[in-house]
């Protein structure tokens, strides 16, 4: 039986479901005329051509009614081009949220000339192919009242894009952390409480946080403020709206991520555990193993700034690279963009991966559910000691996870407990890991995998193992 999973159900204009590998959107009869106009829109066509919007096709009525026999009479079913790996803002570095915000503004401004606009401005409308943002919610586009100078999604754009970026830049609060605690973004009042007085009076904080907080009514606001505001002259409304988008773009650039640095930022380029020669030898071995295995989809767990993700991109069509540190994932995002790598960098701590969230825990699928069986190669380099010691995950559990994630192969770095970094992480807890050695490592992986090769990194207590799934 094919699983049917709801993806989007909050928008009354249409719901999206995933059936097997297909992404389908059911649009009620009343939305049919808007949909037809959207599919003919030259602006949307331009974005689809540039790969920044998912393409859509209308299913023939007989195929649609076979899939949705209970759909309302006259409903239209759209099939969308699938984005290979779904990610959420709670997994993005600031650089990716910035790209999503830029795309939202590009689209809003582009649509203005066609007399259309975006009815919402949330990062959940955007997915990523590598580091390229793709707008996926075609029904966010609607005809706009030519006399209306107000963009009602302005507050949502500020809440879900500008304020998380602002806090990331000013207070070093990771975007991923903001979205974990506040899936719908931050209210200006929340940001106001977090900012110091001098910051509250700076630009762009004054117009994004302070003034909206001061202007917000203490009690429920009068309904009249939400009544449509119409200008007699449509040119004047258009001029005002265009200015609003330009002002939002200026504010977005004022909160542009600066590329933060963490304790792990220099780990890949100047690792404390390797000499230059050892590092080169390790890179050559990983390159050789991937060239032999020819995987198509690679998951690089604990990717750091992406030295091995970049090597992986030479061999596989798609690489998903995860790390719990937002600074290194941000750096990888910049690298991926600069070198046009097909790598999707995500802030995911594999010891505490993203849980399922949203309505009935079904709107946003957990990371493991999205990743399970989606990769034919898993890279776990210089990671196992962090899982064993810092996160206190038993070795057998680590093997079980790798078995779930890969369909074919795993390249895992063995790190001996006498290794300098292993000892540094232990901090006097040696007794907890007395049973961990080369034999324990080999027998734990050997239960689920067949060993293909071992490469001892010269002069170190580390080795690269290539395992093939039994």
């Amino acid at each position, binding site marked *: 039986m094919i699983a049917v999973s709801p993806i989007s159900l909050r928008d009354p204009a249409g719901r999206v479901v995933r059936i097997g590998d297909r992404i389908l959107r059911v649009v009620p009869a009343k939305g049919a005329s808007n949909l037809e106009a959207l599919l003919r829109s030259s602006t949307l066509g331009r974005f689809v051509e540039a790969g920044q919007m998912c393409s859509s096709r209308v299913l023939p009525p007989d195929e649609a009614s076979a899939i949705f026999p209970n759909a309302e009479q006259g409903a239209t079913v759209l099939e969308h081009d699938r984005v290979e790996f779904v990610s959420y803002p709670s997994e993005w570095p600031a650089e990716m949220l910035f790209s999503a915000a830029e795309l939202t503004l590009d689209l809003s401004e582009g649509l203005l000339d066609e007399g259309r606009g975006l009815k919402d401005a949330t990062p959940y409308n955007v997915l990523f192919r590598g580091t390229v943002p793709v707008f996926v919610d075609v029904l966010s586009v609607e005809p706009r009242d030519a006399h209306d100078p107000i963009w009602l999604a302005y507050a949502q754009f500020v809440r879900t894009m500008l304020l998380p970026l602002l806090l990331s830049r000013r207070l070093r609060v990771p975007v991923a952390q903001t979205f974990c605690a506040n899936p719908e973004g931050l209210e200006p009042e929340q940001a106001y409480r977090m900012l110091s007085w001098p910051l509250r009076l700076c630009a762009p904080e004054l117009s994004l946080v302070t003034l909206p907080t001061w202007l917000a009514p203490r009690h429920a606001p009068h309904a009249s403020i939400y009544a449509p505001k119409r200008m007699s002259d449509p040119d004047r409304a258009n001029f005002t709206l265009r*200015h609003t988008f330009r002002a939002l773009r200026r504010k977005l650039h004022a909160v542009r991520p600066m590329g933060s640095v963490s304790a792990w930022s220099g780990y890949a380029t100047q690792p404390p555990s390797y000499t230059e020669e050892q590092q080169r030898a390790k890179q050559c071995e990983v390159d050789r193993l991937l060239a032999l295995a020819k995987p198509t989809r690679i998951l690089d767990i604990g990717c750091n700034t992406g030295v091995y993700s970049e090597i992986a991109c030479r061999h596989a069509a798609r690489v998903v690279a995860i790390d719990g540190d937002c600074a290194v994932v941000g750096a990888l995002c910049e690298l991926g963009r600069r070198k046009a790598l097909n790598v999707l960098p995500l802030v995911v701590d594999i010891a505490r991966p993203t849980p399922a969230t949203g309505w009935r825990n079904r709107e946003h699928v957990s990371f493991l559910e999205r990743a399970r069986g989606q990769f034919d190669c898993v890279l776990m380099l210089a990671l196992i000691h962090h899982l064993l010691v810092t996160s206190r995950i038993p070795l057998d559990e680590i093997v079980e996870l790798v078995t779930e994630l890969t369909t074919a192969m795993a390249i895992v770095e063995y790190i001996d407990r006498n290794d300098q970094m292993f000892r540094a992480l232990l901090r006097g807890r040696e007794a907890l890991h007395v049973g961990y050695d080369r034999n324990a490592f080999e027998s734990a992986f050997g239960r689920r995998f067949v060993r293909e090769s071992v490469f001892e990194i010269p002069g170190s207590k580390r080795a690269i193992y290539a395992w093939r799934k039994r």
Partner: protein
Amino acid sequence: MLYTDPGSGALIWQLLVATGIGAAYYFRRLLFWFARNKKDSQNHL
């Protein structure tokens, strides 16, 4: 159809800015009108 929360403080702020920009629109048109008239009168001379 709008189903997002338009906020309150942010909406009031947008309304205030829109009022100011709306006024700037007329001011801009007035400047254009003066500039065009000046150019026309220079052409007549």
